[in-house]
């Protein structure tokens, strides 16, 4: 009997050192289920009963915290709330900023004329006028072309 307990004591030491195999652990669980256990080993009984029967109840629940890293579902109310806040801020900026007397939306803007940067607004205006004139000229040409095409098809239709 003493020899048998000596073996259990060795297994206990291995168990608490993390060295037991599954087979050895099963031997320990079985031993502590028995009704006759020497006095000095009785105090281990609850621990091994716990490892055998109750640990899964505890750890299965406890470790479900991994959900913390799961993607959270979209919270529509939250999105609407923050969208509203963002819209309000934009509205305030839009309404208030243009009324500042020193406000110039073109500050730091520049144009490049023949490869040279110019911050002079008059340069920009003259170039803008030239571009607009060119656009008007092209538009007029297109209008003329359109008229010519219409005329051409009208003639074709009359012939047909």
């Amino acid at each position, binding site marked *: 009997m003493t020899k048998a307990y000596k073996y259990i004591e060795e297994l206990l030491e291995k168990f608490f050192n993390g060295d037991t195999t599954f087979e050895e652990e099963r031997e320990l669980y079985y031993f502590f289920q028995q009704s006759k256990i020497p006095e000095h080993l009785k105090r281990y009984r609850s621990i091994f009963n716990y490892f055998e029967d109750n640990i899964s109840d505890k750890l299965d629940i406890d*470790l479900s915290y991994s959900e913390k890293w799961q993607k959270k579902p979209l919270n529509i109310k939250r999105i609407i709330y923050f969208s509203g806040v963002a819209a309000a801020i934009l509205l305030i900026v839009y309404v208030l900023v243009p009324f500042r007397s020193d406000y110039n939306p073109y500050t730091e803007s520049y144009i490049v004329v023949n490869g040279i940067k110019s911050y002079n607004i008059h340069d920009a205006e003259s170039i803008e006028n030239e571009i607009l004139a060119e656009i008007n000229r092209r538009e007029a040409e297109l209008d003329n072309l359109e008229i010519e095409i219409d005329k051409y098809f009208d003639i074709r239709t009359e012939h047909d």
Partner: protein
Amino acid sequence: MDKKQFIEEVVSLKGRLINYAFRMLSNTEETEDAVQEAFMKLWDMRYKLYQHSNIPALSFQVTKWICLNTIRRRKRHDEHLDDIMEIRNSTVFPEKELNEKESVEIINQIIERLPDLQKSILKMKHIEGMDIDEIALLTGSNLSAIRMNLSRARKKIQELYFKIQHYDKSI
């Protein structure tokens, strides 16, 4: 995600995660433990990992969270004594030996206070039925590191449980 995919896609990040954790912790042992724990948490999430568009980013996020927890834990002193008093005070002890239900409740509370890494190892060993080699493989750790943490967890349960029993009997 199965074991093979987990090792290829997650455990392969070990070197980068170690560097990242070490920058936060500046301690080799804590860094090893933090990364080991991160792999265990990620393994726990294995069925949902593919829902994440960026598994490496998630792995870094989990590691960061664990490192921050580690830093927070450093501030705790006299942990054992506080734990024993807290557990004892939260349970009504009869003068006779603890019954089965009370013992389960006490050991639950002791496990509650174990570091997450040790809880994860207990889970992999006692619930998922993995042996030390498998746990080491999935966490990119060596056998002795896993064995040491398993041993620490079991010894802590034993130590605190015996202390509480002794305290109870001395009333």
